[in-house]
């Protein structure tokens, strides 16, 4: 039996990953990197679910992770399609340039 | 059925005018004119048919139609007509005809849509004067508002958008207050009786706590007083009136303000007599302030149309004073004032509109000496200026004098102060005439006088104002039954405003 990784460590790792991803979303201008960072954040959340699931020996955490995985995949496919359209229109991948709608 | 027709005819006329407006500017005008004339003839027939006109009987409701609409919520399609509504509906179609005729050449763009809005607004106003179901009333209240917004915003003058928005916000916000009060009354009534209904006749005499009653009354009152308008809710009026096209100004001043007065008469006081009684001193003070303040503001203006607009604030003060004095003389005075103000101010707006069409300005600094080239316009303007200062022999005097007599029984100081309003009215009316028609002739060398169409319109209005000034009895008789019924409904107010002639007590009081 593999020695138990403490619960706190897992959460810390998830937190660190989440913050890294968040910083990435906030500071990167390249839209692909923003998407990547969002993936990192999603995975951080997934990790937190898994850790929590193992802490209380419940399968729900892993079920949630599968949901997140599917959602992340869907998000990436839509996101990348948008990135391609954006590149077509603006000839750049800078997210700040796509602020015309002020949305 | 005739009541439904009264509303349907302008609605359909408006739709037809819009449909047939493709590339043809004249058709919509004729369609609207004919529809309104039919409407007017219907009301006139209705009037002729009932002996109340001659003061022979004294019924309250002349026609009553009550159809189911949404029975689960207690909403019905309840229209009814009494003498008061009859007079106001008659005024509506009369001024409708006048406003279509007055804007015959003024409106050149989107003629069809203009007439659509005009007619729908008139239909909404007619509905307001006829509906006895509060839900239906609110529906028509909104119906008249939206087309009016478009009339100002699309065909208005320089600052039309901001004026239209201001108008809309004021009336809409106060309207929402009224909606809240209507719902409040609906639930209060249900709490007491278990019956959920919006029907006016059933809601009369609802028992409620005094604070509750006051709050609900204020909800109604504010909506009506904003429309009326009374100080300090009057500031939408000068903007809206000034910026609206002529027809819009006529309808605003002649009819829309009257819905406020009508609402007070029909709903605010009879539904909440106790609260209204408590509120009387405040309302009368507001009325008197309005009379004087409006007059001072009118005098200060340099824009002719704005001046006329502010006179409305002053004149409607008399109406408010009369309504809250709530005795027969004052109420009759208020009704006559409502009608005559509609006519006289409408006529003044037509003259201002005609002037603007000719010299492209409303600035009085740039007018003067117009009598020389346009004596007919001057004569008519003079007559309506005199009507607005309350010259005996013209209708407004009858209204104002009756209001003053009626108010005297309630509060002598208020009456005395209100009477000084007559002096101020003289000042602004004469000033207006002086600046426009008299004085040296200024920039405009040749101003075409009123033409046949305009003179015809004016002839009708002059005839009505002189007729009411010298023989108002038909109007008084018509309104009598309705006003008596209203007074009976508002039992608490009636005991307050009852007239007595202390011929003997006068001496008694003295000898003490």
């Amino acid at each position, binding site marked *: 039996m593999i020695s138990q990784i403490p619960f706190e460590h897992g959460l810390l790792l998830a937190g660190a990953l989440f913050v890294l991803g968040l910083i990435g979303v*906030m500071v990167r201008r390249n839209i692909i990197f923003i998407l990547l960072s969002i993936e990192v954040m999603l995975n951080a959340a997934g990790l937190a679910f898994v850790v929590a699931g193992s802490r209380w020996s419940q399968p729900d955490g892993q079920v949630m992770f599968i949901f997140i995985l599917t959602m992340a995949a869907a998000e990436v496919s839509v996101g990348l399609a948008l990135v391609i359209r954006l590149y077509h229109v603006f000839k750049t991948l800078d997210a700040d340039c796509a602020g015309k709608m002020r949305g | 059925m005739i009541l439904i027709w009264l509303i349907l005819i302008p609605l359909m006329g408006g739709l037809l005018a819009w449909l047939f407006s493709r590339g043809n500017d004249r058709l919509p005008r004729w369609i609207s004119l004919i529809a309104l004339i039919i409407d007017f003839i219907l009301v006139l027939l209705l009037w002729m048919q009932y002996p109340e006109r001659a003061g022979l009987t004294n019924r309250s409701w002349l026609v009553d139609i009550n159809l189911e609409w949404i029975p689960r919520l207690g909403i019905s399609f309840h229209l009814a007509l009494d003498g008061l509504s009859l007079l106001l509906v008659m005024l509506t179609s009369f001024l409708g005809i006048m406003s279509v005729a007055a804007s015959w050449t003024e409106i050149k763009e989107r003629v069809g849509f203009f007439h659509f809005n005009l007619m729908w607004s008139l239909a909404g106003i007619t509905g307001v004067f006829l509906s006895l179901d509060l839900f239906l009333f609110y529906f028509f209240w909104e119906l008249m508002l939206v087309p009016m917004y478009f009339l100002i915003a699309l065909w208005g003058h320089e600052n039309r958008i901001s004026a239209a928005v201001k108008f809309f916000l004021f009336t809409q916000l106060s309207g929402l207050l009224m909606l809240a009060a209507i719902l409040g009354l609906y639930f209060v009534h249900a709490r007491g009786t278990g019956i959920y209904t919006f029907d006016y006749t059933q809601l009369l005499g609802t028992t409620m706590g005094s604070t509750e009653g006051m709050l609900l009354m204020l909800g109604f009152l504010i909506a009506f007083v904003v429309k009326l308008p009374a100080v300090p809710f009057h500031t939408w009026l000068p903007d809206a009136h000034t910026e609206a096209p002529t027809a819009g100004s006529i309808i605003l001043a002649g009819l829309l303000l009257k819905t406020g007065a009508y609402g007070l008469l029909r709903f605010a006081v009879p539904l909440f007599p106790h609260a209204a009684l408590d509120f009387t001193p405040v309302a009368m003070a507001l009325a008197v302030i309005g009379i004087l303040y409006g007059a*001072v503001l009118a005098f200060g203006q340099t824009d002719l149309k704005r001046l006329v607009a502010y006179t409305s604030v002053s004149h409607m003060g008399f109406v408010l004073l009369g309504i809250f004095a709530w005795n027969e003389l004052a109420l009759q005075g208020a009704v006559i004032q409502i009608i005559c103000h509609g006519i006289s101010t409408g006529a003044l707006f037509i003259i201002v509109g005609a002037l603007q069409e000719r010299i492209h300005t409303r600035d009085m600094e740039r007018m003067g000496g117009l009598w020389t080239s346009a004596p007919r316009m001057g004569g008519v303007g003079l007559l309506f200026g005199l009507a607005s200062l309350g010259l005996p022999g013209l209708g407004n005097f009858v209204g104002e004098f009756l209001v003053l007599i009626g108010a005297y029984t309630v509060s002598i100081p208020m009456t005395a102060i209100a009477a000084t309003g007559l002096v101020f009215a003289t000042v602004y009316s004469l000033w207006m005439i002086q600046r426009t028609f*008299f004085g040296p002739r200024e920039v405009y060398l040749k101003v075409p006088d009123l033409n046949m169409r305009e003179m015809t319109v004016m002839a009708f209005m002059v005839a009505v104002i002189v007729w009411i000034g010298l023989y108002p009895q038909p109007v008084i008789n018509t309104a009598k039954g309705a006003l008596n019924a209203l007074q009976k409904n508002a039992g608490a107010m009636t005991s307050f405003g009852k007239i007595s002639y202390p011929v003997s007590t006068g001496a008694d009081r003295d000898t003490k």
Partner: protein
Amino acid sequence: MFSKHWMLIAPARCGAEMMELLWLIPAFPLAGFLALAVTGARMPKRLAAIIGTGSVGASAVVALFIGMHFISSPPQGHLSSQTLWTWIEIGEFRPSITFYLDPLSLVMTFVVTFVGFLIHLYSTEFMAEEEGYSRFFAYMNLFVCSMLILVLADNLLLLYLGWEGVGLCSYLLIGFWYKDHANGRAAMKAFIVTRVGDTSMAIGFILLYFNLGTLNIQEIMQRASQAWPVGSTFAVAAAALLLGGALGKSAQLPLQTWLPDAMAGPTPVSALIHAATMVTAGVYLIARTNVLFTLAPVVQEAVAVIGALTLLIAGFSALTQHDIKRVLAYSTISQIGYMFLALGVGAWSAALFHFMTHAFFKALLFLGAGAVILALDYEHNMFRMGGLRKELPLTFWTFLIGSASLSALPLVTAGFYSKDLILWYSLSSEDGSPWFWAAGMAGALLTSIYTFRMVFLIFFGAAKGRVSRKPGMTMKFPLLILAVLSIIGGFVELPRIPIFSEFVKTALPSAKTLHEGLLGEGMQQVIASGVSLIGVSIAYLLFLRAPLNVERFTSHPAGKALHRFWFSGWGFDWLYNKVFVGPFIWIARTNKDDFIDLIYGGMAWYGRFFHVALSLTQSGKVRWYAMGITIGAVITIGITVFL
């Protein structure tokens, strides 16, 4: 066409049916007004003159027939009334359009229609070259109609209709030459100042109605004397409020300032409205409601005091004017002051008598002045006239007769008898006092001084202007008739042969004399005659014999100041401008944009401010939004964790 109309009706009827024609008296001028107003400038001048003059002439003839009938076979109780229709009927409130004829209104009707007719006739020539000829006659006809409604009204509301109607016509006619702003200003001033009084009067009507339950004048008088004891609060209040109206219309202190400015109108207008008829409406009102004033001795005393003060103040002002019409205007104010004095001491019929003679001689003087003004090409300044005696003989003689009558030269003039009656009652009546008498005497002296100053300046001395136009027949005829009336008009009321007061005694109670012993009536007449003759001699000495003395006086600083003070009408205009007009205009101008709107404007401004501030956050930058979300999340978590 109107002038012929009466012939079809009038002679055909007689007996009691005569009174049925009462409504025709105001109806003719009204019809004339309508005809002239509707056709406007399209009507040829000749036709306008015929309609305008003819309609008043027709009503004068009807008035004559009715009057003759009234005198020869007086109706029951010396009054008759005719109801045309009920004006308004709401419960007990039931004023009707009813004409009421008694000796008082008959005298007024006579004067209004006959003097009115003569002045209309005069105007056909005087106004011949004016633009707006038919407009002039339309206004004049409307005036005559309103004035007749005023004097014939049986209830106060109808009286108010006539009252405001004459005010309106006065406004329109003062501003007849509308192209000049000054005329418009004078017209507005006249209307607004009188309107102040009218409003007070309207409140008085409401008070009367509320307390007595009727607006019918006779019923009011009857009920008031039953319900109110002498000096009761209500009677005093009602009388005081009515007095306000009378003061405005009759240009008495403190509302007298409009009348001198009203001279901006054409001269016939001044003759008709601002001398003979409208300005005496206040006298009529007080005489008509004399019961109320008897019930309110305080107010009646005030009437006398106001009359005495006004006649003196206006007399001094008249002494200093250059403008011939302004002299006559101040003189009118002063003479109406006499009438008020008479009313105040309870000599009702004396006031009415003086009203009648004053209408004759003052109309005559104005029309004469008009002839002079026209002859000298619209010259109003008396100091630029002179020596016109030879050039305009008829005008001179008639003007002289008018002046003699105004100055009450003894025995031969109408003014002597009427003014003498007032002076006598001011001393001997129950409410009279030596002070009133002294004021009246001083006023009489002033009157003859300023009147003959005018005569000497205009008609004597060296000729200064060139006469460019002489009056024709239509102007001479009214002058002659009025001159005759100014002489014989006084013979209807001689001492000990009081035909006039006998005639009106059913309508107006006779005065109660008390202090018979203080000064005999004969003695008082001698004094009065002496005073007026002294006045004429003073005028002769000062203005014809040695004008230098006057100049020396007015060039002295104190004299100059006094002259300016009197000239400006005792500074009332200045005071009113400072106290009322200036502040009102200032407030209206300052508040032009309505400070209440600032509240709503402020609300709109804040709305817009937050709108701008919040829309700045909507930059369209994804990273910016992410930052927002993060900060929001951090704050939310912080709050939930730490609080």
